[in-house]
């Protein structure tokens, strides 16, 4: 009996969908717009975060010690700096390693190598390369070094401050987020109103059938369920269309982002890692939204 009832509920839901075909098209279009704008916002967010991470990864502090400073002092300085909670990683580059790295880097440049040989002894100095946990920690680390006893042994400190660039990305990302959330909210509200209105009109179109159903003893579940299913039908179709549009967009954008950002932003990889979670949440969210809008319409216009 339940299967017959379920079959008939689905049949009535599909009938409702087709009888108001153009209204259904408008409803689906608005939900698709909402979903696509959410996905687009997501891509922008992921891209901005990837860019920030990429730039952050390039930042470090290099401290070059004077030529006559004993290696034990550099090691001591390294051990002391390493104790700072802000420091994520610290590398000691000895004079020997520095010259090896230099030779390796310029192995094809005969003039530089000859100049190095002419200089006789190793002209390079020992250094420490420091990476902080957060971008804001660099100032603190620099302050510590400047005020420590090791400052007198230091010949040069090199810190490329990309903070302003990172802040810019952060700010753009924030603006995109704010504008995006407003746009998404507008679409969500419009979607709720349109679904509500569509279900309301469907109920109106079926008012005679509903009256008969009530008088012949159809259960409230049977009378109301087709409208919930119709709402879910809207979300399923909208969801599938939005996925197609999204993949089309990704495939169009991906080669550009890979080329422009030198591979640091890989949207496809992000989607394949998180797609199930993202699309699953979106589908559940859309279904809840349509069921919510349907429930309001049913409660308001379907006295059973």
């Amino acid at each position, binding site marked *: 009996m339940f299967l017959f009832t379920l079959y008939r509920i689905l049949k009535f839901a599909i009938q409702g969908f087709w009888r108001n075909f153009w209204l259904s098209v408008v409803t689906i279009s608005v939900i698709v717009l909402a979903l696509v704008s959410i996905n687009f916002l997501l891509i922008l967010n992921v891209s901005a975060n990837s860019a920030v991470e990429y730039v952050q990864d390039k930042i470090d502090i290099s401290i070059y010690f004077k030529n006559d400073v004993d290696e034990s002092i550099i090691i001591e300085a390294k051990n002391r700096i390493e104790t700072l909670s802000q420091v994520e990683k610290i590398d000691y580059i000895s004079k020997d390693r520095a010259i090896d790295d230099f030779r390796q880097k310029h192995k094809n440049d005969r003039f530089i190598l000859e100049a190095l040989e002419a200089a006789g002894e190793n002209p390079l100095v020992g250094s420490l390369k420091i990476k902080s946990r957060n971008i804001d920690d660099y100032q603190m680390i620099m302050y510590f070094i400047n005020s420590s006893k090791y400052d007198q042994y230091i010949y040069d400190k090199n810190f490329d401050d990309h903070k302003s660039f990172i802040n810019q990305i952060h700010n753009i990302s924030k603006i995109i987020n704010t504008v995006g959330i407003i746009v998404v909210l507008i679409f969500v509200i419009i979607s709720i109103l349109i679904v509500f209105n569509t279900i309301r009109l469907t109920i109106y179109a079926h008012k005679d059938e509903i009256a*008969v159903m009530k008088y*012949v*003893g159809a259960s409230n579940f049977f009378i109301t369920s087709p409208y919930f299913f119709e709402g879910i039908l809207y979300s399923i179709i909208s969801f599938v269309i939005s996925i197609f549009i999204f993949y089309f967009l990704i495939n169009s954008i991906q080669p550009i982002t890979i080329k422009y950002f030198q591979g640091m932003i890989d949207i496809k990889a992000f989607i394949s890692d998180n797609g199930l979670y993202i699309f699953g949440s979106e589908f559940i969210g859309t279904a809840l939204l349509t069921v919510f809008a349907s429930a309001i319409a049913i409660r308001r216009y379907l006295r059973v």
Partner: protein
Amino acid sequence: MSMIHLENISKLYSGDVMALDDITLDIESGEFVSLVGMSGAGKTTLVKILIAAERVDKGKVVISDWDITKIHRSDIPFLRRQIGVVFQDYKLLEKKTVYENIAFALQVCGSAPSLIKKLVPDTLHIVNLNDKKNNYPNELSGGEKQRVAIARALVHAPKILIADEPTGNLDMINSQEILDLFLNINKIGITVLLVTHNKDLVDSIKKRVIVLENGKVYSDKTKSKYSL
């Protein structure tokens, strides 16, 4: 055994309109009762109370040993499957054939297709509309439309059949045919409550007549005529 038991029921609508005022009635199983009265006498309110479309403000309503005075919303469909209702305006679905209109009543209550295939032709046979089963309502006469509505009300094999002004849109000949049908239905044991204005129709039945006036029972006589 009482099929319908009303005990001191009152119904007050907003604006202090007393639709029903302390009515006590018993209708036995298998009885044929005509409920008459002028407009505003409370007939339709009484019908609505019997099918739980309205609730009484005071009193007790019992249908076939089931106290429905404070019936839960979810139980109303089960009550309505025991009470067939026929209206003046037929309430047929114009886009469905005669067969589909009757089958619809079973479909929406979850009946199996095999049961529908058996019950619908049987019911069509009772109302003598087998040859019209593929016609749409707009291809039928008023009397035929009302017979489809009666078939739809009967298909659940109800204990009670309530007809609210069933002949209001029909001529005398069609009205008499519909009345004969109700009398035949009553003969198979179904309690019939006929709500009507039609004096000639009521007079020809010679069965129990309850007259309502201003929400009260004005008279209640067996084998009576319609008189105020």
